[in-house]
């Protein structure tokens, strides 16, 4: 299971059976260039592995203006 913080919605969710950043984005129905994915303050590219109990921030980039 991984813990996901969604921004700018400021919502926390938990997801199961996610192995990579790309898998996470697909689950959230986001294209890779629609969001930043951050773990421990570091940006992750879509090919990076995710591990059990990871805390990940997903920030969509489309400006709200």
């Amino acid at each position, binding site marked *: 299971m991984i813990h996901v913080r969604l921004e700018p919605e400021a919502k926390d969710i938990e997801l199961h059976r996610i192995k990579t950043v790309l898998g996470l984005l697909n689950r959230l129905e986001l*294209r890779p260039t629609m969001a*930043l994915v951050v773990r421990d303050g570091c*940006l992750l*590219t*879509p090919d990076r592995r995710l591990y059990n109990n990871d805390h990940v921030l997903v920030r969509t*980039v*489309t*400006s*709200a*203006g």
Partner: protein
Amino acid sequence: MKCKRCKAQAVVALPSHNTAFCEECFYLFFTRQVETAIRRQKMFGPDDRILVALSGGKDSLTLMLELALQGYDVTGLHIDLGIGESSIQARAKVEAFCRKHSLNLRVLETASVGLAMPDVKKYIKRPVCSVCGKVKRYYFNKVAREEGFDVLATGHNLDDEAARLFANTLRWDAAYLSDQGPSLPAAEGFVRKVKPLYRLTEFETANYAFLKGIEIHSAPCPYSQGASFTNHKQLLGELEHRSPGSKFAFYDGFLRNGRPAFQLLEEEQGDELAPCRECGSPTSTELCGVCRVRMALSEKKREAGELA
């Protein structure tokens, strides 16, 4: 994924450029895109004084920081619209950002010139977002001219520009199509306007802002009916996903082959501009749009007993 330049662990993957970068090489890529934009579109030179419109969002702060790092003479202008907590927070972010990086900042409160947005929303029947945009453009231009800046820079990115172009194209609005681009020359009453981030996507500016630790104001405006052009951005995002690079090709192709056609048409048919009789700003009517709103507002408030 490895950085295409230095083979370190990549932190940003860019399908439209078929590449990926580590943090340091991404900054280099970003800087070169901005340099190319400034050079190809003849935006400004090292001696120009540049006024940068700062909303507090990631794009405007990114632009301000990157131009300062490139050694340009930049001053920020934040327009405080007086929309409650939202405006207070946006202004605080801009002020903290400029303090942190020792950057010059001007702040203009629209309430001080009789145009507080809550009043506009309350008394003026037109959509508040359209009036607000008009007021901001008006004062960005006015401050730039009155304080002797050579050019006004805004943080519009490729997604903003492509979505606006898409909207104008779906309506085939010839006047807008003749007059949209990353570099609009000075004209009678208008300062030169430039968009140095037009070659960079929203994703790229978001990565830059994150990596540079820029604290952004990301709460949507409480008056906004949802993000502008969001549908169009999604459609173009879909197109880009299927065919990487097509978003830039659409915008760049317009600048090369589309805009000249509409400019030719406008030369034959376009409206003449003359100074507004109140404020002197160029307008195709006798009284410019902002002066009309300001007068209507003051009258409505008087009727409502809010002004002497």
